[in-house]
Every structure is written in C-alpha cells, then in structure tokens.
C-alpha cells in the first residue's frame, strides 16, 4: 500500500512543480506578444507605430504586476480552470480553442499509438522468440530502416505521392470544409478520409520503437535463468514465451506506453503541422510561434497532466505486474 501512496504523493508534487515550470518557461523568453501580433498584421520587418502596440496591449490585457503576483494569479486561475483568452484567437478563450483541437489529436494519436504499440510489441516478441530466424531478420531489418526515416520526411513524401500526384487523399486539413463539423456520418467520413495520411505517416514509424524495445527486452529475458529453467523443466515453449519472458520483457514497454501516451502531443507537432491537422500539436506550434502565452501555457499544462496521469498509471501497473517492486517498497 505504501508503494501506491508514495506514487500518488509523487503525482501531486510533480504536478505542482510542472505547473510552476509551465509558468516560468514562457516568461524566460524574449519577445512581446503585442508587438508580435501587430507585426503579424503589418508584415514582418515593417516599422510599427508604437501607438498600435499600446492599443493591442490594452486589448490583450497583458499580465501586470510583479512576477510573484502574476504567479499567484496564475495558480488561482489554474485551480479555477480559467485559462484566460488566447492572444492569437482573441477574443476566444483558451479553453474554447483547446476544446476544439483536443478531440482531433486524441483520436488521431490515440488510434495510431495503440495500433503502433500492439503491432510493435507483438512483432517484437515474435522476432525475439524466433531470433535470428528469417522472420526476425525481415522484421528487424525492415523496421530498422523504415523506423529511421524522419517522419516529417515521410509525411512530405506521402503528401506528394498519395495526395498531390495520385490525388487519392486530401493533402491537408482535418476535414474538407464543404461539410460543416457536426455529428453526422458525412462529416465523420470526411474526417476519417482526411485523417488517413496523417495517421499513416505516424503509423509507419510508430511500431518501430516498440518492436525494438520488446525484442531487446525479450531477448534479454530469454537468456535469464528462469526462462531456461522453465524450458529445461519441459514447459511448452509458447507458455514460456508468454508467461515468463514476455511478461517481464513487456514491463519497460508498459512504462514506455504510458509515457508515450502523455507525450502524444510532442510527437505529433510536426505531423500535424505538415498536414495542417487541426489538433493540439498544431495549436501548440502556432501558440509558440505567436507568443500566445495563455494558450501555450495551458497546452503545456494539459500535456503535463496527461503525462503525469499516465506515469501514475504506469507506476501502479508496474507494481501490479512485478510484485517484487511492491514488496521492495514495503520493506
């Protein structure tokens, strides 16, 4: 029990530290959001009337007071769930913007992440079990090469070949625009059609990490004595593979999966950017580009909480899967 309590305490403490970090990071950077905003309008490099900047500052209601006061305000706002107004999408609120973007990313990345994990872990386990066999060679070498292709590059190639040249898929966007977003089959069909290429460019490389991780871990556990002992005792190979090797070998992958779920956003920034996919990754990149502090902070915060929760789950799962860890913490 103590193990689980300590994990929860970690969760709370890390949450606070992360919230604070979220406050600090954007403020360490140079750049005035009002100036950036006016600059965007005037065209970069244009000289800007200071009156215009002042006016935009007024409109944005930029944070005032000492850094400490800002911090207290920020903490209170976070507790209230009030994340302010986006600078880029003024006068719409940050919450409004995130609510609009979040489902896209959750679906896109959720699907590809789970698929990638399942495919990757299975292939990896199989490759390890039949290591140095033909299957292993094909899977390993194939995924080795494919997995190393930069995925922004894959995305560009996919766009050019499948969307631009062959015109099988739309080259950008989350939906065509002809159909307004609604709970209709027409819209979902359209959205899935648009999601195929982004999903594909994530899926091509997604399982690779899991294949490698699983294969290496499992190869390692296959060399362990308990596995060999089990084999020596005459247990069936499949049973050994599943209940002994795979169960231990999957542990680091489970951690990885949980963390990977949290870093969902990071991994998709580039793909969402290239495909102009209306998700969190794109929103975040735009927020950073535009010095949209409130939006940026909140997206950071959401991601952070996501990772934290995933982390907590991983820890708890770890304790469940490997009782030794739990016992260790109790002694």
């Amino acid at each position: 029990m103590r193990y689980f309590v300590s994990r929860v305490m970690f969760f709370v403490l890390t949450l606070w530290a992360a919230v604070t970090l979220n406050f600090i990071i954007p403020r360490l950077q140079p750049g005035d959001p009002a100036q950036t905003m006016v600059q965007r309008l005037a065209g970069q490099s244009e000289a800007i009337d200071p009156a215009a900047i002042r006016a935009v500052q007024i409109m944005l209601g930029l944070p005032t007071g000492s850094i400490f006061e800002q911090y207290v305000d920020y903490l209170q706002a976070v507790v209230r769930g009030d994340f302010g107004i986006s600078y880029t999408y003024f006068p719409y609120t940050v919450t409004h913007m995130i609510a609009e973007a979040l489902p896209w990313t959750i679906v896109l990345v959720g699907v590809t992440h789970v698929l990638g994990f399942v495919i990757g872990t299975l292939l990896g386990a199989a490759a390890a079990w039949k290591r140095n066999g033909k299957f292993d060679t094909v899977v390993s070498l194939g995924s080795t090469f494919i997995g190393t292709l930069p995925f922004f590059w894959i995305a560009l190639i996919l766009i050019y070949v499948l969307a631009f040249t062959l015109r099988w898929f739309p080259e950008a966007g989350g939906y065509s625009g002809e159909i307004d977003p609604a709970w209709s089959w027409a819209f979902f069909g359209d959205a899935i059609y648009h999601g195929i290429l982004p999903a594909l460019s994530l899926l091509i490389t997604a399982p690779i990490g899991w294949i490698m991780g699983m294969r290496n871990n499992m190869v390692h556990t296959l060399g362990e004595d308990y596995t060999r002992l089990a084999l020596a005792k005459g247990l069936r190979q499949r049973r050994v593979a599943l209940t002994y090797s795979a169960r231990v070998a999957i542990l680091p992958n489970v951690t990885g999966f949980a963390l990977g779920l949290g870093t969902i956003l990071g991994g998709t920034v580039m793909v969402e950017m290239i495909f102009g996919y209306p998700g969190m990754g794109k929103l975040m990149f735009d927020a950073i580009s535009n010095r949209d502090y409130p939006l940026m902070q909140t997206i950071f915060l959401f991601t952070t909480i996501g990772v934290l929760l995933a982390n907590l789950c991983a820890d708890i799962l770890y304790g469940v899967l490997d009782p030794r860890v739990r016992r260790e913490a109790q002694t």
Partner: protein
Amino acid sequence: MSTPIGQVAKPIDSEPAPGDVAAAVRRSRLPSWVVILWANRKSRIGLIMLGLFIFVAVFAPLLATHDPKVTDFAQSLPPGGAHPLGTTASGQDILSQLVYGARTSIVVGLVAGTVVTFIALLVGLTAGYLQGWVDEVLSFLINLALVVPVLPLMITIAAYSPVRGLFLIIFVISITGWAWGARVKRAQILTLRSRDYITAARFAGEGRLRIIFAEIMPNMMSLVVAGFLGAAAGAIGAEAGLEFLGLGDPTTVSWGTMLYWANNSGAMLTGQWIWLGAPGLAIALLLSSLTLINFGVDALSNPHLRER
C-alpha cells in the same frame, strides 16, 4: 561469501561463451566488445555502414567536390555533369552539402548521445540502486523532466533562444533527452536489484559501488550501449527535425538544413527529388547503422545470444 545462486545468476561470469567467439575474443587484440559485435552479422553490417559515414565525415574536405556553402553555380540544376546530384535553388552543390552534412550528424550524435547517456546512467543507477530519499529526489527530477513534453520543450527553447546553431541544438537535446533513459535504467535496476544474487552479494557485505559496477553493470551493458545508440540516433533525428523546422542556424550545412531549404525553396515543385530525398535517406541510413549495431548489443551481456 557468495551463494551458489548468486554465481549462477551472473551469466557472463558463469557461462563460458560459445567456442568461436570466445576464441576470437582471445585471439584478437581488439576490445572484446568490438569482436562480439563484429561476430553478429547485422551489427557487422551496421559497423561497416557507420564506418563509411565516419569516413565521409572525417574526409569531407577531400571527398566533396565543392565548398558546400558557395552559391556560385547555376540554380536548380538537375543531376549530372559537374554536379552529380544537381544544385540547390541558390546554386550550391547538393552532393558537397550531403558530404559535409555527415559531419554535423556524426558530431551531434556522438556528443549529444554521450551526454545524454552519461546523465541517464548516473541518475538512473543512483536512483534505482540507492532507493530511499535519494531515489525519491532523483525520481522526482526524472518525473519532472519526463512530464515536460520533450519536443515542444525543444521547440520552445530553440525558438526563443537568442543564439542559434549547432551548440544550442546539442544543448537542447542533451538537457531534454536524458530522463527517458534514466527512467528505463532505474526500472531495470529495480528488477535486477531484487534478484537473489544481488541480495546475496549485499548479505555478503559487498560495497555499494562494487555491487553497482561489478554485479549490476555487466547485466546492464546492453541497456547502456543500446541507450547510447538510441540517444545518438534520437539526437541525430532531433537535430534534423529542429533544423527542418527552421530552428537551427540555416547557414550551417547539415542534412536537416538541407531538408529545410529544399522544403522552403520548393524542391518538390521544381522537381528536385534528389535534393529532398537524399538528406532524408542519408539520415535513415545513418540511423539504420546505429540500430543494426544494436542487434549485436544484446550479445554483450547475454552470451547465449552470440552468433556463431
């Protein structure tokens, strides 16, 4: 006094390596890890590929036909003649850029990979083995570093940094990349640590450092080396990604900046496939070589896996 169980559980010490490799190790003056890796067909291919890349990187000035930054040639030339891969939209020789780009990637991989592995190992080992409050503190740091989304953090730091360039990118990769490895190593130690042979060693009164370096480390060798190769690969990929996003110094010559320029100067529109394709493939091949080497790595700490 070691218990028999402990002895049995240390594969490297207890099990003789299969004949050929063991003999090769004995015969050779090379470090044993090179021999072991060389014995594996895949990692041998990887080593050869990596060797080629390093060769190209080291002798870039001799191999490149032109100065990669000089913009004196006709713009957007198709491949052929004096420019086997053509020229960029600003009149640079693509082949020479590709050759020099190898330097950047190798340096980034080597430096960032080493730094990341070192930090990860130090933190992971300490946290996982010592446990107690040290673990609490370090785990807290690991978790903290993990919860900050890495790529967005990289982008943020790089985007806002007052200076641009390779050093910044290596720095960003290093400070954002270690937590994952530390976490995995800590997790590994947690399981290793609860093994009987470690318990036995502890009861036998062996010192902590000795247990860590003599008992645990050998079992973690593959993890460490794999971690390094992974970190180096990650760093090379991240460098290319950041450069592609325009967050590096676009005047440096690297595969990432080549992709950046190719993309922003419409290489696809002008039909210069090689300009866009070659750097991507070069990155993939270099990373492939690292991954291939990784195939032989598990044999380092697990003799059963050594190929004949």
